[in-house]
Every structure is written in C-alpha cells, then in structure tokens.
C-alpha cells in the first residue's frame, strides 16, 4: 500500500500539533511549579511592607495598605546596634575572605596545574580528600587554637584561613580552568625570559579571570550565608554580622515582630540576589564545572 504525500503531510502536521500541545502543557507545569517555589519568598517580601495584623491573615502578594515601618523599626536593630553596623561588618568579612581565597587558591592552583614538583600527585590527592572532609573533625581543635591565640571575638578565625587556601573547591575549580590554558603559551612566555612568578602574574592570572570571578562570587555567597563560624567565634554584639543580627532579633523580639524581621531578612537577601543577577553566567559555570552549589 502506498502512502500518499498528502497523508504523510497530514501525519506530520498532526505530530507537530501534538508536540506543540505537549510543549504548552510543559510550559504551564513549570510556570505553576516555579510560582509555587517562589511564593514563600515573594510573600515574605510583600509581608515586609504589611502592617502586623495583615501578616497573620493575608496570603496575598500585595499589601492592602503599604508601610515602611517594618524597615525603619528593623533597621534600628537591638539596643542601639543597627543593621547598618551588621551590614558593614559582614561586608568587611566578605571582602577580606574574597581577597584571601583569590590569592591563596590561585597560587595553589597554578602550582598544581602548571608547575612540576615532587610529590605533586600525592598532594593533589590530599587536596581532593579535603573537599569531602566534614569540618566538624577540625572545628574543635581550631576553636581551641584560636582561643589560645586570643582570637575569639575577632574576625581572624573567619578570614585568616582563607589566606591559606582551605577551601579546596576553589583550588580544584581553578586547577581545572588553568589546565585548559595551552602549555605552548606558557613556554613561549618563558622563552621570552618570563620567570615562573611573572608567568603567574602576567599570563595565568589574566587568562583565568572567569575562574577567579566564579571564586569571588561563591566566596561571597558562602561567606554571606555562613552562620556556624560566626556563631562560634563572634559573641560581641559590636562585631555581629547580618545573620547574627537576624538571629538576635528573633531571640529578643520573639515571634511578635515578624514584620521587621521579614524586612531585615529581605534586605539580607538583596546582596545575594544582586550577585545572582549580574553574575549569573559565572554562577552557572561554577555549578556545572566545579560542582559548586549555592
């Protein structure tokens, strides 16, 4: 039996139509699910503009009556210490952590990716092992050590380790990236008289900027979201971070002050969101190539 051209065309159109329908169904499904996922976040943001009485009853996105009271009330913080202080404290920690990670991890990565030295495979394997090490096996002696150095209630325990490339993820990420830089380039530079240090500074680092940016972004996110370290080492309210400020707010105001708490929570997420909006490409890159999670 012969299939006429018209029948074939009809079948093709039908399957095309079918595919269109199934695509529409998928679109609807992922849109609805996406909204469900974002709903708590959006609700929190909108609630930060609501009067307290409304927060408890309303499930809607839009405040019936807008107010900025939550923000002024929240920003005032607790007993004279404002969120302005907590934000600048956190920014300082984040900034120094970024510098530490970029410098120390890129140095280690350059050594692993481009230099030859004895015991390299063993040391590299060791680095990979530290990726999987739960921090709890080191945290108690570290605490004792920092306590002995009188560094409790300072930022040293939160910042200094970064200058020693303790975050193996970033070393790994940069090694992967630097391995992709052609050795011919490095050799050419060295024939022209470039020392290893100059090669690192003038060739490897500029070419590794995407990996460095990814490192900066993830250091930002992780340090911003870190709570355990801050809880452990910082108890002086003058040194509190945003996360600690939020937690103190929760403890002191209890569950009576959801409005200001939501306002400050929203503010605390804005820097993360900003990084996400402007550096999405690098974020996705970091997740897919280095297996870094947000």
């Amino acid at each position, binding site marked *: 039996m012969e299939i006429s051209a018209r029948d074939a065309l009809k079948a093709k159109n039908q399957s095309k139509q079918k595919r269109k329908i199934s*695509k529409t169904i*998928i679109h609807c*499904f*992922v849109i609805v699910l*996406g909204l469900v*996922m974002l709903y*708590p*976040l959006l609700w929190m943001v909108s609630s930060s503009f609501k009067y307290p009485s409304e927060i*408890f009853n309303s*499930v809607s996105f839009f405040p019936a009556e807008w107010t900025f009271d939550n923000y002024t009330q929240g920003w005032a913080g607790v007993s004279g210490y404002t969120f302005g202080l907590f934000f600048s404290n956190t920014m300082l920690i984040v900034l120094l952590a970024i510098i530490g990670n970029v*410098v120390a991890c890129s*140095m*280690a990565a350059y*050594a692993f990716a481009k*230099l*030859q*030295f004895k015991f390299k495979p063993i*040391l590299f394997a060791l680095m990979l092992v*530290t990726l999987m*090490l*739960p921090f*709890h*096996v*080191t*945290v*108690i*002696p570290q605490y*004792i050590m920092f*306590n002995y150095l009188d560094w409790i209630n300072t930022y040293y325990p939160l910042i200094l380790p970064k200058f*020693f*490339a*303790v975050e193996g993820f970033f*070393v790994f990420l940069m090694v992967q990236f630097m391995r992709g830089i052609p050795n011919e380039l490095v050799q050419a530079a060295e024939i022209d008289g470039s020392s*290893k*240090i100059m090669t*690192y500074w003038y060739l490897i680092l500029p070419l590794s900027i995407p990996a460095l940016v990814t490192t900066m972004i993830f250091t930002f996110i992780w340090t911003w*979201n870190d*709570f355990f370290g801050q*809880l452990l080492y910082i108890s002086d309210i003058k040194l509190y971070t945003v*996360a600690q400020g*939020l*937690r103190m707010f*929760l*403890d002191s105001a209890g*569950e009576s002050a*959801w409005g200001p708490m*939501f306002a400050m*929570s*929203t503010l*605390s*997420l804005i820097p993360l*969101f900003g990084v*996400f909006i402007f550096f*999405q490409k690098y*974020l*996705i890159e970091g*997740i*897919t190539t280095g*297996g870094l999670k*947000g």
Partner: protein
Amino acid sequence: MGKFKLFWKNNGIGYLFLTPWIIGILTLTAIPMGASLYFSFTSYDMFNAPTWIGFDNYVSLFSDPKWLQSVKVTVIYVCLGVPLQLAFALFIAVLLNKGIGGLRVYRAVYYVPSLFGGSVAIAILWRQIFGGNGLVNNILGKFGLEGINWISTPSTALYTLVILMVWQFGASMVIFLAGLKQVPIELYESAKIDGAGLVKQFFTITLPLITPVVFFNLVMGMIGAFQAFTPAYIVSGGTGGPLNSTLFYTLYLYQKGFTQFAMGYASAMAWVLLIVISIATAIVFATSKKWVYYQG
C-alpha cells in the same frame, strides 16, 4: 651541590606557590584532625588539661539517648531529603531539556531557592510559614481546613526541614541540565522511530547516560546533608526541639562542644560522623561500578 639545594632547584618554585596551601593544610586540617582524634579519647573541658579515658567517649555515645536520637534524625533527613531533592531536580531538568524555550528564565527561577536556602533569613521565614499562625495554615484556612503548628509538633517538625532541603533542588537541577546536554539527540530520534514512548526513552536512554551526574549529585548531596546546621538551629531556636525531633547531629555536636564544653565527647562525635560519611560515600562509590555508566 647539596641534596637539599638540588631538590630546591627542581621543586622550589612549585613549593613556593604551594606554601600558603601547605601551611593551611598542616595547621588548619592535619594537626587539628590529629588533635581531635586525641581529644576523642580524653575528657576535656578546655579549662583543665585533657585526661585520657580510652574508648569511654565512644562507648557512652551508644548509651546516650540524645545521641541516638540525633543519629536517627540525621539519617531520616539524609535518606529522605537527598533522594527527593535529586528526583525533583532530575524531573524538572528533563522537562526543561525538551527544547521548550525559555530555559534561561526557568533555570534562574528554580535556582533562586538554592541561592538563598542556606541563609538565616530563609530559616526564619520557614519558622513563620510552618508556625501556628503561619502562611501554610492561612492557606489551609482558605480551604476550610485547620492546620497544626508544624514547627512545634514533634512528628512534623523534621519534615518541614526536609521540605526546605527539597525546595533547594535548583543547584542539582543546573548540574543535571548540563549533563543532559551531553546526551546525543540522535539517540532519542532513533528511539522515537522504534516507537519508544517518553517514559521508556527516559529509562533506557536518559537515565543510563547521566548516571555519572546522578552519582556526583548523590555524593555531594549526602555530604552536605550530613553537615546541615543552620536550618535546625534557627527553626528550633538552638534547642533541636520539640522533643529533640530536629536535633541534627551537628547541632548536638555544637551543644556538647560549645555550650557544655564537653570537647572530648564532641570530638568523638565528630570522628564517628567522619567514619559514617566515609562509609556511606564508600558504599556509593563501591556500588557505582554497577550502576554508573561511563561513556567511551
């Protein structure tokens, strides 16, 4: 030339660049690990010198009901949360990979919870949402249903935290999406000609080819979930309550080590955690030969 000089000439520059890392791994990883292993065999409160007590800490762990509870809570959290999170991540990734367009927007939307999820702000939000007068009960109320206080009910508190973990499936999804792009499209076309349906295509083509990604996500998800701390701490106000139902392993370790200063005991807990994570990872690795398929 001396032996050392020769070694330096060949390897010096490498070690020069590695110096910060080596100092770090020695002073912040290796020595602390040794120290915590030693402390785990002692009774130590940080103020008096440690006294050697052999395996006492390890033995008392197994008769400490709170420790047993924290193990139970953590195992439920890991064994329920990680597979659910991965299943969600894979399911959505497969849907988005159907060439429906708008991939970048969807990916961004689904990733946002992963970005925020570990923060104190979200933990606070969760506490409200699942509280007695919270959002969930308000929504239930619209349908004429009356909810309970999910956070302060021992039988439900842990599951609110599982939901929080599953909510953050975006990062795994992004990794899955990258993996799915590697699957050759011709395979699907020939499967279609053979009349294989979507479900069959998924189980015979997609799933086998992305098992390495599943494997990676599984290992990383497990390691992360074993170490979760912030959500339990904030949601329970640091207690692990109600009735220790959210007493994560790390939270109990924190309480023992840093509020009761039972440093020896906490060190023993840390080592048990390390051993458990190693065994769990080793099991995943060992069985991976059977189910992970590497191309080429």
